[in-house]
């Protein structure tokens, strides 16, 4: 069993924080198939958040195929987080480094480069946002 925590200043929606903590726990091996997640009632009793927030996070995890709700028993881990290929990570780190160097060569400051990166991540990865 894991315990959720919240970072109110993160700007990340509460349900998404819960989803990410389950992802992380799976990646770290803290949660494995067969393990039970805390019930919505347990989560709201410790975090003082709206129960629908917990249910929404669990629904998202269920859609991803990571958990399954068994009525009357609880919500159980049934899947594993696909871990990306380490060699793919290395490859993208390398091409990112090349990109940063070419940006520096073009005269962009570190701050500008970070701003471009952040904007691009937000535009490409944030769901629902414009």
């Amino acid at each position: 069993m894991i315990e959720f925590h919240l970072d109110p200043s993160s700007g990340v929606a509460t349900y998404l924080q819960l989803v990410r903590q389950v992802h992380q726990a799976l990646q770290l091996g803290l949660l494995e198939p067969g393990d039970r997640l805390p019930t919505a009632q347990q989560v709201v009793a410790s975090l003082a958040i709206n129960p629908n927030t917990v249910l929404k996070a669990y629904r998202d995890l269920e859609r991803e195929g990571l958990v399954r709700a068994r009525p009357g028993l609880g919500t159980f881990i049934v899947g594993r987080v696909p871990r990306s290929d380490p060699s793919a990570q290395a490859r993208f780190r390398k091409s990112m480094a090349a990109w940063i160097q070419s940006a520096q060569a073009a005269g962009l400051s570190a701050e500008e480069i970070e701003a471009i990166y952040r904007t691009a991540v937000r535009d490409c990865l944030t769901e629902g946002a414009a």
Partner: protein
Amino acid sequence: MTSALEAVSLGKRYGHHWALRACTLSIPAGRVVGLVGPNGAGKTTLLHLAVGLLEPSAGTIEVLGDRPGTGPATLARSGFLAQDSPGYARLTVGQHLQMGAWLNPRWDGGFATRRVADLGLDLRQRAGTLSGGQRAQLALTLAIAKRPELLVLDEPVASLDPLARREFLQTLMEVVAAHGVGVILSSHLVADLERVCDYLVLLVAGRVALAGDVEELLASHHRLVGPRRDPAAIPSDQVLIESSHTEKQTTLLVRTDGPILDPAWTATPVTVEDLVLAYMRRARDGEAPAASGLAVVR
């Protein structure tokens, strides 16, 4: 499903002063509703109308499909906690529970006894000697043990320290999760409301300035930052809520169901607090924000 609260052109007048006017609201059942607004905005008036402590001067209000306060059956369906968690100072904790059992047809004595034990309250202690947090928890226990379908709480955590406040909200959310009871809760503490509420009602000067599902409100509002320009030039599907300008830059808060297509804007999401503050200022300053200010500078 019946709504928790339906108000149509609801108004309440004290002498010449309208504490609440033209209030039209439709709040779905089973939600946790945060009621916010400046002091004197009409929050307590609305809550008192919702539980039948006041009669409307205009319009209508229905709670759980019934006119509030019209009989014992209606009264049993909602639980009300007035400001400052009142109790009877000279009665003991145990006598409060006994009174709850006598007065409420659906009284859940098992829950009340368990809850009081969990809180570590002594049944023989007089309510007047409890701490503020304990008194609030006792009052909440009574309101929950009557097993209402809707809990109406007027600033329940205003006078509590941070720990007591968190514990109060934990209890409340646990009950919502376990019994699906709806809640209408007024508070100035927007950070608390952001955690617990899924529906927001903002009152300013006796009128509804904003109401809706929190998630939908957050998804449909954007803060736009870009080069200075006239806010009147925004697309017709965007409603301007607030604008501010420097010599070079314009910052807008807009409401829209469509995407932000203009690449000149950097769009960022807003928080519940951003919305509450922007709509409070908008209601205070009138509904045409800063347009005249821009004309002068140009």
